[in-house]
C-alpha cells in the first residue's frame, strides 16, 4: 500500500495516542510504590489495548477469506492494519514496563519485534519497488505467470529463428558433434577450446561459412537457455552490455536478410532480462510475508499462553 496523504489522519491519531499512552505510563510509573508492572491493573489495561490492536491487525487476513464481511473498504482495513499495528508497539512497551521479562515474555517481545520490523520492511519496499518496476520493467508480466511468459517467449523466438534458418536450424547439433572430434586439432592450431566457447569453431575443416548456421548456432548455444524459465542472473545474456556486444557481433556476421530476426531475438532477450528483474523484485516485495505471517501465528500462540498463565497466576 502506498502511504499517501490519506494516511495523514491515521498517522496523527496514532502519534497522539502514543503520546497519551506514554504520559499515562509516566504518571503511573512515578506514583506506583514498587514501580511499573505488567501485572497491575494499569499495566494490564495497556496489555489489553495492545492485544486489541494486534487482533485487529490479524483480522485483515480473515477479511480476505470471508468476503461477506464487507465491513469497511479494503483501503481502510489496510490503513488500519498499518497504523493500529504501529500503535500496538508503545502500548505493549508500556505494558511490559520497557523490559523483556521472563522466558515466555522475552520470546513474545522478540517475536513481536520481528513481526513489526518485517511489516515495516514490507511497507517500505511497497513504497519504492513498484515504482522501480514501473519505470524499469515496461514488459512486466503477471507475476504468477512468469514461467508461462518465459516459455511462450522462448517458443515464439524459436519459431522465428526456425522459420528463417530452415534446414540450418538443427544443424548446430550435428556440427557440434563434429566439432567435438576436431577439438583436439583446434586446440593445437588456435589454442582455443571450442567446447568452452559454446560455438563451433571455424576451422579449416569447414568448407563453407553459413550465416543461417551462425544464427541457429547462436540461438541454441546461448539464447535458448536464457529464454527458458530456469535462467538466472549468472547467464551471459543477463548482462545487457555483454548481450549487446554479442548481438552486434552476430549482426555483423550474418547477411542483411537475417538481421530482422536478430532484432527480434535481441528484443526477446531484453524482455527476458526484464522478466528476470521482475522476478527478483517480486521476491523482495513478497518474500517478507514468508516471515511476517508465520511469526504472526507464533505471536498469537505465545500471546494466548501468556494471557492464560498471567490470569491464572
Amino acid at each position, binding site marked *: 500500500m502506498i502511504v499517501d496523504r490519506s494516511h495523514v489522519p491515521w498517522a496523527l491519531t496514532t502519534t497522539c495516542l502514543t503520546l497519551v499512552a506514554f504520559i499515562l505510563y509516566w504518571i503511573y510509573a512515578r506514583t*506506583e*510504590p*514498587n*514501580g511499573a*508492572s*505488567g*501485572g*497491575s*491493573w494499569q499495566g*494490564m*489495561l495497556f496489555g*489489553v489495548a495492545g492485544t486489541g490492536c494486534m487482533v485487529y491487525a490479524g483480522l485483515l487476513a480473515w477479511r480476505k477469506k470471508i468476503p461477506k464481511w464487507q465491513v469497511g473498504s479494503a483501503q481502510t482495513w489496510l490503513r488500519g492494519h498499518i497504523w493500529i499495528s504501529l500503535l500496538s508497539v508503545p502500548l505493549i512497551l508500556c505494558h511490559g514496563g520497557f523490559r523483556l*521479562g*521472563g*522466558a*515466555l*515474555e522475552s520470546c513474545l517481545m522478540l517475536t513481536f519485534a520481528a513481526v513489526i520490523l518485517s511489516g515495516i520492511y514490507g511497507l517500505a519496499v511497497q513504497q519504492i519497488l513498484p515504482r522501480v518496476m514501473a519505470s524499469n520493467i*515496461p*514488459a512486466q*508480466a*503477471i507475476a*504468477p*505467470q512468469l514461467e*508461462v*511468459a518465459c516459455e*511462450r*517467449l522462448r517458443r*515464439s523466438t524459436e519459431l522465428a529463428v526456425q522459420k528463417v534458418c530452415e534446414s540450418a536450424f538443427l544443424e548446430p547439433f550435428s556440427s557440434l558433434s563434429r566439432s567435438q572430434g576436431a577439438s583436439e586439432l583446434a586446440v593445437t592450431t588456435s589454442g582455443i577450446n571450442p567446447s568452452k566457447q559454446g560455438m563451433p569453431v571455424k576451422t579449416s575443416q569447414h568448407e563453407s561459412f553459413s550465416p543461417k548456421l551462425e544464427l541457429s548456432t547462436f540461438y541454441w548455444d546461448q539464447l535458448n537457455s536464457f529464454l527458458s524459465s530456469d535462467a538466472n542472473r549468472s547467464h551471459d545474456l543477463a548482462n545487457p552490455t555483454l548481450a549487446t556486444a554479442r548481438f552486434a557481433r552476430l549482426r555483423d556476421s550474418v547477411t542483411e536478410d537475417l538481421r530482422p530476426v536478430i532484432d527480434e531475438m*535481441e*528484443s526477446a532477450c*531484453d*524482455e527476458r532480462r526484464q522478466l528476470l528483474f521482475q522476478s527478483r523484485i517480486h521476491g523482495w516485495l*513478497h518474500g517478507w*510475508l*514468508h516471515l511476517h*505471517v*508465520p*511469526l504472526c*501465528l*507464533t505471536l498469537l*500462540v*505465545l500471546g494466548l*499462553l*501468556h494471557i492464560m*498463565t*498471567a*490470569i*491464572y*497466576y
Partner: protein
Amino acid sequence: MADRRRLKTIASRYDLDVLRHRDPLRLMRFRLSALFLIGTVLACVPWLLGDHRAFESRCVSNAHKSFEQNCSQCHDQSGAPLRRMITFNNSWTSTSDKKCQSCHRESNKNDNDHFLPKTKDEEFAWGNRHAILEAQLETLISPLKCAGCHEEHRGHSELTQVSDAQCSNCHLQVDHLLKSKEPNGQHRFELKFSDFSQHTQLGIWRKSEALNRDRADSPVNWPNDGKIDHPVDASKILFNHRRHLDPNLPAGNGKTTSLDCVDCHQAEPNGAYFRPINYQQHCYQCHKLGFPSTGELPHADPEIVQGIVLDNLVKNLKNKGDRPVQSDEIGGPTKPPIDPPSRDLDPKLQPIDAAFQDDIRAEFQKVKSQLFEATGFDNVEPRNHVKSPFEKSCTKCHFTRQDNKGSVGWSVIPTKIPSQWMAHSQFRHDRHFSVDCRKCHTRNGGLHEPSEREDYYPVLKEQQKSSTSIYASISAQDVLMPRIELCQQCHGHGSSNGGRGSVSDKCVDCHDYHHTHAKADFRPGINEMLNNGQIGAAELKKTLSIKGSR
C-alpha cells in the same frame, strides 16, 4: 529498447488456466505458517507440563529460589490479576497473607502491628489516644497485604528491601490524620518527607512539645532555663569522658594506663549495639569502693552496703584496741543493722561496751555521710591524687537523695542509661566499624572537626566550650549521639549530600515495619515444604531458631 510487441502478442503468451493452479508463493507461505504454528505449540508443551519458571516475569528472590519451580507454593489466589483489572485495585494479590504466614510469622494484624508503641513509656504516654487512633489507622493499614509491599518477581534479591514509596505514601496520609487528632495540630511524629535528605531531625534533638509530652522516659531532657539550646543526657549518672580518655590515666601504684572506647563499650555478639556498662567488669579495677575503716564495699544497694559497713566496722574496730567485742549473732550484711543489743534483751549476750558502741556509731555516720552526701568533686581538671575520701563515695558517680525511707534514709537515684537511644530505628555498629567512634559520637550533636593532629587529646582549655570532640566532654549531661546531618553525609544520593557519599538511604535500612520478636516460634510451614517432612520437627526448630533481627 523500445517495446515493439503488440498487446495481442503479449496476451497470447499467458495461460488462462493459471487460476486453477495454486500460487507457489502462497503455498510456501501456508506451509511455513503451519510449520511455525505446530512448532510453537509443541515448544510450549514442555513449559506447560514441566517447569513453570518460563512464565514468570522475573526470577524470585534468593530466599524463595529453593521452591521457585513450584508456583503453587505461593500462588493460591487464581484470577487475582483479572480481579485487579476489573476492580482497578492493585490490592488484590496473587498470594494470600496466609500463604506467607505459613513460613513468616510477621503480620500486619497480630501483635506485630506497626503502629503499636514499642516501649512501655509510649504505652503510658499514648493512653486513650492510642485506642482512638488505632481505629483510624486500621483503615489505612488493614488493606495492606504482605505481597503488597514485598512484591516478588521484581528481580530483587531480598524482599525485605521495600521501596521508600511504600512507607512515605502511607506516612503522608497518616501525617494529616495524626495532626487532626491533636489540639494544636502538632504530633510527635514528623512524617511529611519522602526522601532521606528531607528526613526529620532525630527525636532526641527535636524540642517538640508533643514529643516531650509523650516521652515520659526519654533519655534526654530539655532544660527550660534558656541557658542552653540543646538537650541534656538524663542518665542520672556522673561521668567524665575526658578524664577517662586521658592517655596518662592514673592506674594506681604510680602506674598510668590508657583507655579507649572499646575498653568499656563492648559490642554485643551480633555487633549491632553494645553491652550495658557493668561496674564489676568496667569500673571495679580502678574504682574499688570502701574506706580504710570499712574495707572493700560491694557495688550494691544502700541497705546491703550499710549492713556490710556496720559489720566491717565492728570487726575492724575490734581489732584496733582491747575493747571487748561482743559477737552479734543477728547482725550481718544481709540484715538491717540494729543497735547493739542491750543486756536487757538477751541476758546471755555479753554486754557491749557503750564506748565501743559510740565509736561504731560515730564511724558509721562518718562513712554513711561519705557514701551518700559527699560533694565537691572537681570535674574540670584531672586530679593528680586518688587519696581523697570522696573518691570512694557513691556520689562520685551517682546522684543520691535523702528520703528518710528504709533503714538507710538515703537512696541512690537509679541510672537511666538506655541500651538503645533511638527506639524507633535499628542500627548496626558492626557495619560502621570502618568509621572511628569519635567521628559520630561528638559532643552535643556537633559535627566532627577534623584536626591536623591524629590524636585530638587533650583539648585546650580555651576550646573547651566550643569543641565538639568527645575529649571535651567532662559531664555525663553531654549528649554524645549524632544528629541526622551526620548520617546524611554518607547515606543518600550523591546530589543530596553534595556528592560525598552514596550509601543506601532506604527506609528499611534503619526502620523495621514489623516489630520482630526476639524469639521466633517454630514455623510449621517450613517443615511441610522442605523434604516432605523428613526433617524432624525438633531438629528443624533448633536449626531455624531465630535470635532476633538485632
